[in-house]
């Protein structure tokens, strides 16, 4: 059911999009997201969504995207039905279709970023955008310990089951209460682990030097400048269009109900 989140998970690929600098991709994703928030008509949103597909194809991730979107179809259906029933605008169905497309477009724009940027690169990009090393590193460490924590959670679940805790029985309330014997040991174990990790980092000079160096720095190449330039142009252009240009009639097309 949560399979649609896969679209935000980095996949190792060798593609033109993967090789772009994360900072230029950040700008690109931001631009696409803003554009999809600027318009609320079916046709412009469709154009934006369609324009993103070649990008996904260039990132060799079209199939992954399609699979995740299929996983999201229930959520979209839900949005469409409830909006149609509860909305007060004149053409509720048309409006909710547009909303659903907007959600898709937003997710896709961010997925272009997260699918193709390794967490390490993201951290490095943040550092080079003047975010303090400690914060950027904390983020990358969170990524590092997610699978470890998951493993630990399973081990604790097994241990509790072995002692007779029935984790998957009872009504909703009971099941929620069942989380307690998992979460409490997990927190304790994590705190202990944190201490031991801190010990190890301290021993390797974490925070020792004011001028920490980096083995590899991200570099803007010509194509990164090109992407950045095009993104800014698109952003300014679409904001201008939204504010000062009346869209042609066919762009404002609405479904009749």
């Amino acid at each position, binding site marked *: 059911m949560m399979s649609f989140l896969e679209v935000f998970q980095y996949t190792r690929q060798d593609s033109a999009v993967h090789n772009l600098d994360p900072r230029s991709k950040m700008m690109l994703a931001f631009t696409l997201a803003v554009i999809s928030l600027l318009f609320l008509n079916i046709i412009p949103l469709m154009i934006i969504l369609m324009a993103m597909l070649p990008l996904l194809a260039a990132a060799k991730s079209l199939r992954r995207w399609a699979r995740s979107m299929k996983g999201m179809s229930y959520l979209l259906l839900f949005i469409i039905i409830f909006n149609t029933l509860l909305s007060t605008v004149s053409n509720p169905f048309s409006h909710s279709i547009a909303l659903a497309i907007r959600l898709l477009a937003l997710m896709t724009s961010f997925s272009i970023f997260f699918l193709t940027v390794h967490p390490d690169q993201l951290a490095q990009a943040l550092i080079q955008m003047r975010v303090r090393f400690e914060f950027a590193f904390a983020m990358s460490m969170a990524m590092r310990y997610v699978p470890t924590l998951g493993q630990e959670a399973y081990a604790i679940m097994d241990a509790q089951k072995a002692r007779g805790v029935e984790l998957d029985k009872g009504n909703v309330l009971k099941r929620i209460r069942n989380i307690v014997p998992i979460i409490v040991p997990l927190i304790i174990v994590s705190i202990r682990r944190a201490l031991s990790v801190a010990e190890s980092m*301290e*021993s390797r*000079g974490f925070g020792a030097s004011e*001028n920490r*160096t*980096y*083995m590899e720095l991200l570099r803007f190449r010509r194509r990164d400048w090109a992407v950045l330039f095009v993104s800014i142009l698109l952003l300014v252009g679409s904001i201008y269009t939204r504010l000062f240009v009346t869209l042609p009639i066919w762009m404002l097309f609405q479904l009749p109900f």
Partner: protein
Amino acid sequence: MALVEFADFSFKYLGADSLALRKVSASVNEGEYVVITGPSGCGKTTLCRTANGLVPHFHRGYIAGNVFIDGQNTRDATVAKLASTVGLVFQNPANQLVTLNVEKELAFGPENLGVVPEEVRQRVEEIIDLLNLEHLREKHPHEMSGGEQQRVAMGATLALKPKVLVADEPTSNLDPRSAELILDIIANLNKRNGMTVILVEHRLDLVAKDASRIILMDKGQIIADGIPRDVLSMDISSEIGVGIPKATQVYKRLQAKGIELSRVPLTGEELALLVGEAKRR
């Protein structure tokens, strides 16, 4: 002065009832391979933490006496400052790997100390060569086995180019084969590169033959300190319950039965040789 010098050092953790170390005096010279052993809770880990300043800077408590590392008093020198002198490897490999791939892990220490990027790159390549990590280069810690993780963790410590390698039970979470590999690497570092090593280890079977000295600890005190053959054949060793090598145990049994071998054996081969000698006599 010796490279590592404990001078009547005592320590009590904040909130603990008893001393973790009591009046420990010992010194380790350059090029030595010292194995520390003793039952759990005897202060081995605290001794390791003391060597790089984690005690008293990270773990708070009450201290008496002094520890000098390469002439610096650990009361004044911070952990970070000692990082390029003493490299510490811990028990749990997963807790020592904090980045998302092996290259970054190896670079982490030198980067922290502000080493120039070209040299960081060079050190990383050296370590990858030295510890045979080529195939792991891009791996996430989660994708590696325990033995591989520990090898990387050791590499990450060695990347700081320490003068002393202190390893606190680096093999306790590993299977026998990986453990042997790790201990071989440590022995080689000592033999070929002249690295000073302080190793806490229970599997004396595997390390006694390479060690130049064994320190036996119990209840926060040093009980015995000498060359492996002497320490392991002492009665006190079997009384506290350390993992005495089988060959040495056989030697003692034979001695009790009146058969005297010419020296204390540490390995099976050595024992066979000595028994052969005794038979011929």
